[in-house]
Every structure is written in structure tokens, then in C-alpha cells.
């Protein structure tokens, strides 16, 4: 029922289409990228040409290859972070909502605190404190600062589900708490979980780009974020290498839009109040 609603949802399909496109790009990067993204042996600052469809960077890297390979690490950061964030949200939300009591009080307070703490500044500070720079710390930093909102949503959803008749009926059927959580609560939150997942992925991709831009990222990888970092620092726009500056941003925005569309569509499918169009 919901799957079909999802499959016939134009927004979902548009979002999924973009995501699949980037996923293919990422998956097939070794096959379709003309060069290695870290190969710095081309003449720098070339405009678009047959050999370099999108030109080269100021460091003599092929922009197209970087763009293609960049999708890989960008997606990895986005999806891995979103997975971690979703995991925390699920645990905090369910613990808070279903177990209740003082655990809930503590977790709620923690959630509220992280909710109010401004994400990027906190991220910057934590990133400054993390001494080893790399993709893992970046994922860590974004995860730590990005879970609160979804956890709050999931908690209230858990609270709602907990008082639903079918959950009470399951209690009366002699089901244990944890079986109820696993077989009733979690599956019924799947839609919101998925929507949150895409929201978190959007947050992660944007945050990664922001950290890279600030020079707090990992320069060893090629992501759209690092591309922007280099393009900005090497004055891509002044050099007339607009494609180097514009395209990674467009890719981030498109990927973000895909995540947003999916988030939105799942929301629409799950929440019938929005399904009136």
C-alpha cells in the first residue's frame, strides 16, 4: 500500500532518480571517470576541452574526474552519517518514548540541549578539538551534532504509538516489551525513520561541505566539499574556471534536493494529512 503510494509519487521518483544517478556515478567512478581525481600532472587551469571536458583545476587535476569521484566520498559521508544519526535517533527516541521514566527525562533533556546548541559552531569547535583529521572524525562530528531533532520526532512518535490500541492489544496478547518494540513500534515508524534518514543525509552533506570549506575537513579525499574548498581558495571564479566552482555546488544542491524530495515524499506517504494533492 505504502510502497505503491511511494512508487507513484512523482517527487519520490524524482528524488530517487537523482539519487540513483549519483549512486551510479559513485559506483562506476573507476569506469567512467577519465582520469584519477588526484592526478596532478595535467596543465593547470585549462578551460573545457576534448581532453578535459570540464577543464582542470589550479593544481592540474581533471575537474570532471574529481566531480565523478567526488560523488563517491560525498555519498559515503552522507549515507554513513545518516545511518549513524538514524541509529542514535532510533535508540534515543525509543528509549525515551517507550521505556519512559527517568531514562526518558534524561534523554529528553539531552535532546533538548543538543537541539538548542547551534550545530555548525559546535561542529567547528569539536572538529578543532579532534586532532586526527580524516573522514571518520568528520562523520563523528556531524553525527554528534545532528541527531537531536530526529530523536525528538521519533520520541513523540513512539509515545503516540505506545498508546495505540494495537500496541496495547499486543501487550494483552502477552508480548514482551522488546518484542513489541521490534515487531510493532519500529516497523510502524519506518516511514518517519526513512524520512529522517534522508533529512540527516542532507544535513551531513551540507555540514561536510561547510567543514571542508573552513579548512577543518580532510584534504586527502576528493569530495564536492573539498572541490569547493580548492575552487574558492584558488580563485576559480576570477580565473574564469566557473565550472570548477559552480558544478560541485550544484551537485551538492541536487543531491540535497534528492534527499529532500525523498524525505518529503516519504513524509507525504506516511502522513496522510499531506496526501491531498
Amino acid at each position: 500500500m505504502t510502497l505503491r503510494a511511494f512508487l507513484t509519487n512523482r517527487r519520490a521518483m524524482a528524488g530517487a532518480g537523482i539519487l540513483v544517478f549519483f549512486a551510479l556515478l559513485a559506483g562506476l567512478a573507476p569506469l567512467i571517470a577519465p582520469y584519477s581525481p588526484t592526478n596532478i600532472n595535467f596543465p593547470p587551469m585549462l578551460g573545457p576541452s576534448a581532453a578535459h571536458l570540464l577543464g582542470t583545476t589550479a593544481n592540474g587535476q581533471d575537474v570532471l574526474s574529481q566531480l565523478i569521484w567526488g560523488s563517491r566520498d560525498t555519498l559515503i559521508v552522507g549515507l554513513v552519517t545518516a545511518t549513524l544519526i538514524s541509529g542514535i535517533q532510533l535508540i534515543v527516541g525509543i528509549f525515551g518514548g517507550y521505556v519512559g521514566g527517568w531514562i526518558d527525562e534524561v534523554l529528553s533533556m539531552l535532546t533538548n540541549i543538543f537541539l538548542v546548541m547551534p550545530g555548525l559552531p559546535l561542529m567547528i569547535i569539536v572538529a578543532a578539538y579532534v586532532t586526527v583529521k580524516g573522514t571518520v572524525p568528520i562523520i563523528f562530528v556531524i553525527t554528534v551534532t545532528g541527531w537531536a531533532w530526529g530523536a525528538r520526532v521519533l520520541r513523540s512518535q513512539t509515545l503516540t504509538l505506545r498508546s495505540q490500541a494495537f500496541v496495547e492489544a499486543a501487550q494483552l496478547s502477552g508480548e514482551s516489551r522488546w518484542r513489541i518494540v521490534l515487531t510493532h513500534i519500529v516497523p510502524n515508524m519506518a516511514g518517519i525513520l526513512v524520512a529522517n534518514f534522508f533529512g540527516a543525509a542532507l544535513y551531513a552533506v551540507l555540514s561536510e561541505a561547510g567543514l571542508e570549506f573552513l579548512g577543518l575537513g580532510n584534504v586527502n579525499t576528493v569530495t564536492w566539499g573539498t572541490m569547493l574548498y580548492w575552487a574558492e581558495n584558488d580563485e576559480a571564479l576570477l580565473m574564469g574556471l566557473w565550472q570548477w566552482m559552480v558544478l560541485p555546488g550544484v551537485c551538492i544542491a541536487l543531491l540535497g534536493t534528492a534527499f529532500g524530495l525523498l524525505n518529503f515524499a516519504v513524509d507525504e506517504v506516511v502522513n496522510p494529512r499531506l496526501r491531498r494533492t
Partner: protein
Amino acid sequence: MNQRIAIGLAASVSLAFALAAAMASNVGAAGVKTGGTLYSAMPWGTIPDNFNPFLPSGSNAGGTLSVIYEPLFYDNSVNGQLVPLLGTGYKWEDHNLKLVVTTRRGVQWTDGTAFTAKDVAFTFNYLHQYPVLDLSRIWSTGLTSVTATGSNTVVFTFSKANTPAFLYIAGQAVVPARLWSKVKNPSTYTNPHPVGTGPFTLQSFNPYVVKYVRNPHYWMVGRPYIHGLVIEAVKSNDTSLFDILKHNIQFTYTAITDVAKTFAARAPAVNHYWWPVNNTNLLYMNTQEAPFSNTAFRIAIAEALNTKLIATRAYYGAIGPANPAAFVPAQAKAWFNPSLKGLEHPYSPALAKQTLKKAGFKWTSTGQLESARGNPLPSYRILVGAGWTDFITMAQVVSNELQAIGISTTIDQEPWGTYESSLLTGRYDMAICWGAGTGPTPYYDYEQSLGSQYSAKQIGQVAVSDWSRFTRPAIDRALQSFRQTSNLAVQKRDITTVARIILRQVPFVPLTNRPNFFDYQTATFVGFPNAQNPYNAGDPPDAPGANLMYTRVHLK
């Protein structure tokens, strides 16, 4: 290229052999238009509300050290000239144990009182009284006393000979004794109403713009030509670049990416840059840590690096590769001993591999280097400052080239504070940074980079400036000999000794030259320093050398 932290290599000083009467040629030049306000924008972020000349540049408002306070002499590291400012002459006496400096007559502090040798003596004794202020460690050079022996003579007495110390003395900003003797806590005193001898006085200040106005009683008659100077603090190199491209400002100090194309070519008639080399960018290796403690390993790294490519990638041809013994080009001719020829390590990955093989290293089937015992080497970190894209670019090339001989590396960009303290405490594998000292002879860099008094015995302890933590008694002896003499031949021999050790043992790999990044445009004002008229070394607008520019620039 984004050295957002404008920690100047400001106190660049030199030793001169002859005093140049540089003033004469310019004073009273005919047809000079006076008036106008000169603008600059610097990526400083914010301007500190502080005009204390004893603090390092960057901690006080830009201009404090260039237009308000003046030192005794300005040493031009580019042309080797020594320009007299508050001092007019000096001589070493008593086997180099006594330095006698004559001070300028007829100079007035901006509050109307007269400048005398007493102020000079006061300033140096003040540094002794408050060691926090003695940034150049003048009182660690063997100096024992400073006294004014007349209204225009100051005598510096040393316990042991140290001729290079003159440079530090020459560059110290001088303050009025009358006012500073009353200051209680000079290290935190913000000096809100600065009184100096310089060509300008403070007009107004806010955290984003500081304005100076011409000092009508400046000791150089008729100077400065311009009436005002405004320095704006901007947040990024982009902004200052945009500002100068739009001719909102006349000059800035920014390492512009591909400066010829991005900046100069946009208005070839008026947009200019002058990037005179005065230092070297080095690849430091932590010699207290394996395998960088292994000389053969370091040599192999030197052989594996194509410094030409590194320079091209990092500076787009504006700056060239470094001399392998880290001589600055302007000094190489004078100081490079032909006997050093052949000790360099030319770029050759094959040779590098051979060197490694000879030292017992092996390679895995995938081409990774492993130790003699067959343990694959880990990935080493190359430390660079966050956002310093010239260094990061160098690191990328280095990383690529080391990969070619089987050494894997990752680039570790750190915020400036972490970067610097990692460098000082030896918590790094490899790092890219400039040479620790600059001056008119290689001595200054060698002393700072390799002198055992600046090193540390263990990782974790602070090595003040010997960041590769490499020391040799032979080096210390050579430096000691250099200090105690004013005989050029002896000094040359000493420098050659150190250079030979550098080439043979490679404590660091010189990568590229390092210049001052001076950019200017001549649409409305002229008279900026350049290669044809290098009256200063392209110093940043807050460094003492900029003083010379402010007294020469005038309306077109």
C-alpha cells in the same frame, strides 16, 4: 593561497656592511604631488584595539610598528642595504664586545618632546626589566648593559662577541621613556594614545578600520607626501583581492593564486606585484622519530621530490624552487661555496629507491616500502596549516611523489594553533613550513633552525625553532665562530660548514623559495617598491619596512 593568519615574518632584519645614504636620492624630488589618502585592506579579521609596540605584529593594530614607532635601522634583506632611521650610524668596538650607535638629532616625539639617546637606552633596558616584551631575545645574545653616553650616543656592552645580534637591536621599536616609565603592566598595556616618532599619528580606530594622519613634524622634511593612511581589516583573501581588483585599495599583502593571471594581467598597466624572496619553504622531518632519524631515508625523500614541479604547482611560476642548502637567491652568490657543488640531491625516483635499498629497505608486492625486517611502513602524516593552500598543494605533490617510491602519506591540515604547537613539540612526522629565521646572511636561518639552544631533547618538549630537532656539535661550533667574528672570510667558512652538513644529512628538504607577497596598483598613487627600486623588501603594511614606502608613495 590563504595564509589567513598574518603573523608577519615581520622582523626581518639584516646586517649591512656599509651605511647607505639612501635618503638623499629621494628627498625633495621635484614635481611630487602631495595629499591623498592611501588605502589598504588586509585579511586580518579584526584589528586589535592596541598600539603597544612591544607586542608581536598582529597583536597590535596594524601600523603601530610601521608608521607610529620606528626602529634604529631598517635592514633591507633584498638589496642588503641598511637604512638609518632613528639611528644614524654604528660601529663595533673592543673586539666586538661593544656596539656604539649614534642616534638622530632633531627628532621629535609626536607630543612635542625631543627624542634622545636616553629613550633608546630606556627602551632596551625596559626589555630587560620586562622579559615578556623581549620578543627578539636581545638579552639572550650576551648583552650585558645598554647606556646612553651622550644625547645621541648609546653603548651596548656584550659579555661575549655576537655580531649578528646587531640586527635584532637595529629592528627594535623605540618608545619615549617619559611615558613608558609610568606604565605599570606593559605586556597588557593597550597604549590608547600612542606617541611615537613615525611619519603618521593615529586619527581614529575601530575594529575594522584604523586611520592614520600625516605627522607634520616628521623628521624627514616634507615627508610623507600623502595625508592619510587607512588600513581595513577584511576577513578573507578574497575580499582584499576583490578590493584591489576594483581599485578600492592601493596595496595589500596577499599570496594571490596565479598572481600574474588573476591580478596583474587584468590591468597590466597599473596592477603589479612584487614578491621578493627572503626565505625558504622547507619540508621538515621529525629526526627524533623513526624512520626519519635514518639519514638515508631522509636523503631518499630529498631525491624523490621534484622541487621544480612543487614550485610550479604552488606558485604558478611566480616563485621558484629552493636552493638545496636553503640559501635565499640574493645571498646564494655571496655565500655558496663551489665546494658544495655535487652534494645536492637531484630529482630522481630511481636514485631514491637505490638509496633506500642500500639502507636495507624493501618493497612489498604492491610497491609499499617495508623495513629491513619486513614490516610495511605506516602512512605518515604531512602536517600543514588549515587553509594554507600553497602548503597543502606542496603536500599533495610531495605525497604523490613519495607514493611513487612506496612511502604512503596523508595530509594533515590543522588549525594554525595546533599546527604550530605540533611543530614546536615534535608531534608530527613531516611538516611544511618556512625557515625559522630570516636575515641578510644564511646565518640567521641556520642558527634558528639548527642551533642546539633552540632544540629539544625529547618529543613533547618545546623546540623553539629547531623544528626538525636536528643538532650537531659541528653546527653549534660553526655558528659560535660566526658570532664571534666580523671577518667575512671566517663567516663564509662557517656557513659552508653548516651548509655541507645540511646537504649531506638533510635535516629538512628545501622545497621552494618564500617571498614577501606584496601586491599594489598604480592607478592613483605611485612610488611603490619594486624590483627596479627595491627600497624595501616588499614588507607587509604593518612591518617596519612599510614605513619606507609610506614616506615615498605619492599621488600620480
